[in-house]
Each structure stands twice: as structure tokens, then as C-alpha cells.
């Protein structure tokens, strides 16, 4: 396994994609999407943010070119984050009392 060198062309391409996604998310926030589906504005914003994060992790952080072992470690981190978010939110969501 030799080191993979990511070319500046790929870095510039990723940067351009990130810029386009940033412009998209700012634009999407100014449009009322909630009238079509409640909470759609937040969903769109978070999906775009996640796309940006994945691009940064895969290419700027070289995860795409890393070994299976490193990929497993990265995946496990997000897996534990998902456990923390899912279990805590389901706990809050299923309680009868209100926080107000």
C-alpha cells in the first residue's frame, strides 16, 4: 500500500462543489419550503450540510483513499454519534411531560 497523492485538480473541484452547495443552502433558506412539508427547510439545510461534510471527509481528509482500518475507525465515530443522537432524541420525543 503506497501513499495516494490527491491532485490539486480534485481539491479545486471539491472546493467548487462546496461553494455551489453553500450558495444553494443560503438560497434554500430564503424560500418557504415548510408550506409543502413541515420542517422541509431544516431537512434541506441538514442534507446539504451533510453532503458538504462528506466531500470534506472523503477528499480533503483523504478518507476515500485511506486503508480499510482507518475507514472503520471513521465510520465507528459517526456510528457512536448516531447512537447518541437517536437514543437521546427518542427519549425526549416519547416522554409525556412537556418542557415548556
Amino acid at each position, binding site marked *: 500500500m503506497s501513499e495516494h497523492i490527491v491532485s490539486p485538480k480534485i481539491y479545486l473541484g471539491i472546493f467548487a462543489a462546496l461553494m455551489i452547495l*453553500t450558495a444553494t443552502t443560503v438560497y434554500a433558506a430564503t424560500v418557504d419550503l415548510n408550506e409543502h412539508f413541515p420542517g422541509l427547510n431544516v431537512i434541506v439545510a441538514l442534507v446539504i450540510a451533510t453532503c*458538504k461534510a462528506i466531500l470534506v471527509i472523503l477528499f480533503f481528509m*483523504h478518507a476515500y483513499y485511506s486503508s480499510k482500518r482507518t475507514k472503520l475507525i471513521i465510520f465507528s465515530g459517526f456510528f457512536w454519534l448516531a447512537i*447518541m443522537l437517536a437514543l437521546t432524541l427518542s427519549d425526549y420525543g416519547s416522554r409525556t411531560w412537556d418542557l415548556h
Partner: protein
Amino acid sequence: MHRTGDLYGQFETLEQQKESATLGMWTFLITEILFFGGLFLTYTINRHTYADVFSFSSRTIKLSWGAINTVVLIGSSLTMAMSVWSAQVGKKKLVTIFLILTLILGTVFLGIKGIEYHDKYVEHHIPGASFDMYFCTNNPGACNLTTEELAQERTELKELEDKVGGPVAVNAHSQLFFSLYFGMTGLHALHMIIGAGLLLWLIVESMRGRFSPRWNTPVENVGLYWHFVDIVWIYLFPLLYLIDRH
């Protein structure tokens, strides 16, 4: 420690050494993911509970500064990635140049954050004894807002009071939003300041010609850290600035 050239004694090959460094850095970053994850979780629950006041409070933050800072920070990730590439292909001068560019962009980000914090200070939006969401509407001219913006804010505050039950609740809930805003952006800025310190160290080492295609672990690992801080901002920006802008 025993060291042969670029290879430390406990490793068999340079590749194994690099793989270990990357793995170790990611292990640290996982603790950071869970650290910020807890803050995002707290934010989600509070935003869900106090949705109306949170979206109003969010709209008092200037969108333009946040958007500019997103571009600046992603730009600094690009220059950071380019300095890793320069080290990998042995362009020693370029490593230094890209590191300096990254440091400059990081400093610009912190400067803009400072302007934003100052705006919030002027508007009495910093949680504490003098926190007052009604400061700008009660003192026209004290805040950097036009008459129309102030009139708009007055109407929205009235509507909010009816929804949540009075000005005391508006102030209490919006203080929660700004506590999370300053807590999260403050911790993010602290990470940037630490990153700037690391960049300064890398610049000095790089000017000494320390980073080569065979050994550039510090550039690579500080790069991973810098990109991670970028990812945190990628989530902070829509969550804090882009709630209900329509």
C-alpha cells in the same frame, strides 16, 4: 527515541508509521465529534422546544457575515489541503506559502467573528445581567438597524409575546438561544485559535525545510484537525444562521 532517518524505531516501514499517525489522529477526532455532537444535541432539543423564539433570535444575526465566513473557512481548507499536497510532492516553498495563506484565512474568519460578537454586544444580545431582546426597539438609534427593520422587529416581538406568554418568556428563551450561539461558536473559535497556533508552529518548521515527501505527518495531521473544524462550521452555519430566513 531510536530513529533512523525519518523512521521512528517502533515502526517497520514509513507507510506503517504514516498509517498509525492517521489512525491516531482520527481516534482523537472521534472524541471531538462526540464532544460537538453533545452540543448539537442540546441545541436540537432546545430549538424544538422553543422553536418560535429560536427562529426570531436567529434572524437578528447578520446572514451576510456568516455566509462570508463559510466561504473563508472552506477556502482555508483548500489552502490547507494544497499545503499537504505540496509536502507530498516535495515543493518545500509552496508548503510554507499555503500554510501562511491558511493562517491568514483563519485569522480573517476570527476577525469577522469578532465583528459579529461586537454587534451582539451593542444589541445587548450577550447572555447575562444586561441581556435584553427589547434593547434595539426601545432605544432606536443605538443599534445598527433601519427604521423598517426596527418596525418589523417590533411586530415580530408582539407576535412572539402572544405565542410564548409575555416579554419575560421571550427574553428567557432567546437568552437560551444566545447561550448556545456563543457557547458553540465560541468553542469553535477556540478550536480555530488552537489551529492557528499549530499553523504557526508548522510554518516555522516548514521554513526550516522539515517536511518532505517521505515525512510530513504534522502537516497531514494538522490538516485533518483543520478540516474537522471546518466541518463543525458547515453544520453551525445552517443551524444558527439559516433558521426560518424566508
